[in-house]
């Protein structure tokens, strides 16, 4: 990871702001809102239920304590996140964590039985809307090269591939 990350010249968006309620591809009512410290328990429950095969590049961790440590690290004050709920349960979570270059890294997790229903796209778009409101201008992510579904999702939203030299593909987007 040496050198400056490349971002698209064109600004993407606009994106929808949280909170919003939509219907997913399976007809379920999904509410997406900004993560609040009181959502910690709900998020922990979601990540405990997370299927190991849906992990990406080592996260979320599997061990209970490791999940707590990791979660606390990504819901800190300088991090931003949105949470998707259905029937009161957390079913998806998208987050932005600051890096050392004043940009933010994005990651998203959706519970297995809620995947392939458009929730991921809604989460990413709503998180980027929230980020635009706050004034964040550069967001990046890494995704495994074989993960076609995720790559297609990110491209649809406006992310562009900025590096594909290593195991993971890097993608970035400009918000302002």
């Amino acid at each position, binding site marked *: 990871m*040496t050198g400056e990350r490349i971002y698209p010249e064109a600004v993407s968006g606009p994106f929808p702001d949280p909170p919003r309620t939509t219907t997913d591809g399976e007809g379920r009512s999904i509410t997406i809102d900004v993560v609040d410290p009181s959502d910690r328990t709900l998020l922990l429950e979601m990540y405990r239920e997370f299927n190991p095969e849906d992990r*990406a590049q*080592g*996260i979320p*961790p599997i061990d209970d304590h490791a999940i707590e440590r990791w979660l606390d690290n990504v819901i800190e004050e300088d991090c931003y996140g949105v949470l998707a709920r259905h029937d009161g349960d957390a079913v998806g979570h998208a987050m932005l964590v600051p890096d050392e270059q004043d940009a933010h890294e994005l990651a998203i997790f959706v519970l297995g039985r809620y995947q392939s229903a458009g929730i991921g796209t809604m989460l990413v778009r709503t998180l980027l809307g929230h980020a635009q409101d706050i004034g964040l201008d550069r967001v990046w992510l890494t995704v495994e090269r074989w993960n076609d579904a995720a790559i297609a999702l990110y491209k649809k939203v406006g992310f562009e591939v900025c590096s594909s030299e*290593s195991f993971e593909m890097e993608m970035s987007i400009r918000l302002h």
Partner: protein
Amino acid sequence: MKVLLGIGGSDRCWEALSQTVARANEAGDDLTVAVYEDDAVGESTATIADRVREEVDEAGLDADVRSVSGHPGGALVEIADGEGFDRLVVAGGSRSTLGKIQLGGVAEFVVLNSERR
């Protein structure tokens, strides 16, 4: 156990060296250290090799320290596979602030290309 450690002079490499040396002392490993040049670090193999010898001596260990040229991953795999090493050690990756694993180029090459079990 016959252990080969690849080292390019990054902080993570030095961490890998101290861990490997500690293990070698406990388990009685036969340690070989292969030093390569890493553009991101910018130190000559001679400089790195000197420090490796110093640290190995301090630990009271006898290790074969040699320099390799060309593609570091390729050179390490060739030595490991060609000379019957049991283990090849390289510094792994780092994690982003978000927690995702970022594998280094040498580690990636070694994982994809070493043939021994």
